[in-house]
């Protein structure tokens, strides 16, 4: 089959590789109909995730059609259309039984920091991803959700990751009604966090980024106020001043380890690898949020460590909440938000490409060129 493969930092290509096969009786093989490129994939592309091997196929946000089923699979059959959570979860371990499918302990031998994830290096289990014609999906009766007949693949594609992730980000902000919420990062995850903050009854929602097109899109899509951090002297003081000198009630980090805005962190984290990426936004969140406030982290940081002002967080009495998204549990609820028209998830797709054009899509998305918000690949054509 044709598949996108990693060739080393900043280089991906599309090449032939063997078709995936059933390796476990609970597996299915999917013919991939849509595969999105995620901000998380950029961390892989840029060589920041340990044990990313040459030849690895990325892609953890996809929909597909079942073409083969393992002998223990009972809920899915050939021809079913499904959307698949990015986490690979068994459904029966200590964590899955408590709803923490993003922390499943039965799908990743390489590390205890994460469950298995599709196409996300060997650090998350060494599974090939969905930016390919076909993909192996383990625990097929547990993760994948059938796509309702009246809905097209693109409408539900983002239930695989970014809509649940943004929603969980807002949820971890513990909004009770009327709070002021600042979302750092107006990328796909941030956009859904903003929408979700409104759904939960936030009183004011503010987006912070430095890409003007993205801020403009956020203002339109999520009806938020916007701040370009490159146009203000000191973003922390600016945000504090916006809320009577105290700062917002909730700050959400939807940027993660490749944040702009601090030369020190970029040199230490991205250049010298003395910390796992640049925790600039997390630092801003801790400094800007009001005392007793809530910082919610959905942006990805890697092991082993980062330089963050934990003493400030302690002294301010902050609540810090974070996790990989436990995608499966959000799917039915958020499907209803999409179906009812409250959230038009596919409206964030700015670019569509064939699989062969995937390297171009990566570079466009990485550089946020041409108003790029979200790229979607159609490995078998845009039918």
């Amino acid at each position, binding site marked *: 089959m044709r598949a996108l493969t990693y060739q080393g930092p900043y280089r991906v290509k599309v090449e032939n590789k063997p078709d995936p096969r059933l390796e*476990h009786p609970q597996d299915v093989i999917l013919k991939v109909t849509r595969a999105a490129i995620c901000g998380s994939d950029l961390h892989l592309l840029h060589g920041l995730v340990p044990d990313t091997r040459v*030849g690895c196929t990325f892609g953890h946000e996809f929909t597909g059609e079942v073409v083969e089923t393992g002998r223990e699979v009972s809920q899915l059959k050939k021809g079913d259309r499904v959307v698949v959570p990015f986490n690979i979860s068994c459904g029966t371990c200590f964590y899955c039984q408590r709803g923490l499918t993003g922390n499943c302990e039965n799908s990743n031998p390489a590390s205890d920091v994460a469950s298995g994830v599709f196409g996300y290096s060997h650090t998350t*289990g060494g599974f090939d991803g969905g930016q390919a014609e076909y993909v192996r999906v383990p625990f097929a009766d547990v993760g994948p959700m059938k796509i309702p007949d009246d809905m097209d693949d693109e409408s539900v594609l983002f239930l695989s990751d970014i809509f649940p992730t943004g929603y969980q980000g807002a949820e971890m902000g513990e909004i009770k009604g009327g709070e002021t919420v600042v979302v750092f990062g107006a990328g796909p995850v941030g956009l859904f966090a903003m929408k979700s903050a409104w759904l939960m009854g936030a009183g004011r929602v503010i987006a912070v980024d430095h890409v003007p097109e993205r801020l403009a899109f956020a203002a339109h899509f999520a009806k938020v106020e916007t701040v370009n951090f490159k146009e203000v002297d000191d973003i922390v003081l600016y945000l504090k001043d916006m809320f009577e000198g105290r700062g917002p009630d909730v700050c959400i980090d939807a940027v993660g380890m490749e944040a702009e805005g601090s030369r020190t962190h970029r040199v230490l984290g991205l250049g010298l690898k003395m910390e796992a990426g640049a925790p600039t936004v997390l630092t801003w969140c801790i400094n800007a949020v009001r005392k007793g406030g809530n910082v919610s982290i959905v942006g990805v940081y890697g092991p082993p460590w980062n330089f963050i002002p934990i003493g400030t967080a302690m002294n301010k009495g902050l609540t810090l909440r974070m996790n990989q998204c436990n995608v499966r549990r959000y799917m039915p609820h958020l499907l209803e938000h999409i179906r009812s028209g409250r959230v038009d998830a596919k409206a964030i797709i700015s670019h569509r490409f064939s699989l062969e054009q995937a390297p171009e899509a990566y570079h466009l998305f990485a550089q946020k060129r041409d108003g790029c918000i979200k790229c979607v690949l159609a490995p078998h054509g845009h039918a």
Partner: protein
Amino acid sequence: MPERPIPGAAADLEPSSRPGVPMETAVQPLAGARVPITPQHSAVPVYKHAGRKQMPPVYGTAQPPKGLSGVMRKAAYGYPDHWARHWMMLLLADRVDVWEHRLRRSLPWGLPAVAALVVGGVTWRRLSRA
């Protein structure tokens, strides 16, 4: 600020309407889950980090370790994943992996080219001495 910023604003105001509240649910297997899980078998080496007792029942088998980078990865997995050394060795192995692939790719034309240069150089020296 608009009165009703987006359609459905505050639709999930009630925390109990939010699927992730509380984050840890009552203990129960998920729909479709099956126990016991049949263990997967692999024909290629798959590493687990030293802090983990057993292999999980399911894992990926993509890109089996190879060459010098493979040896380095094996050594890295000999340390538990809360050791910085584990991660630093993996990052280093990733760079070695890239160079190994470059080298392997350039062998078909690189090897003959180097051979030709060596033979040419030796002949040249012989001829110029004569």
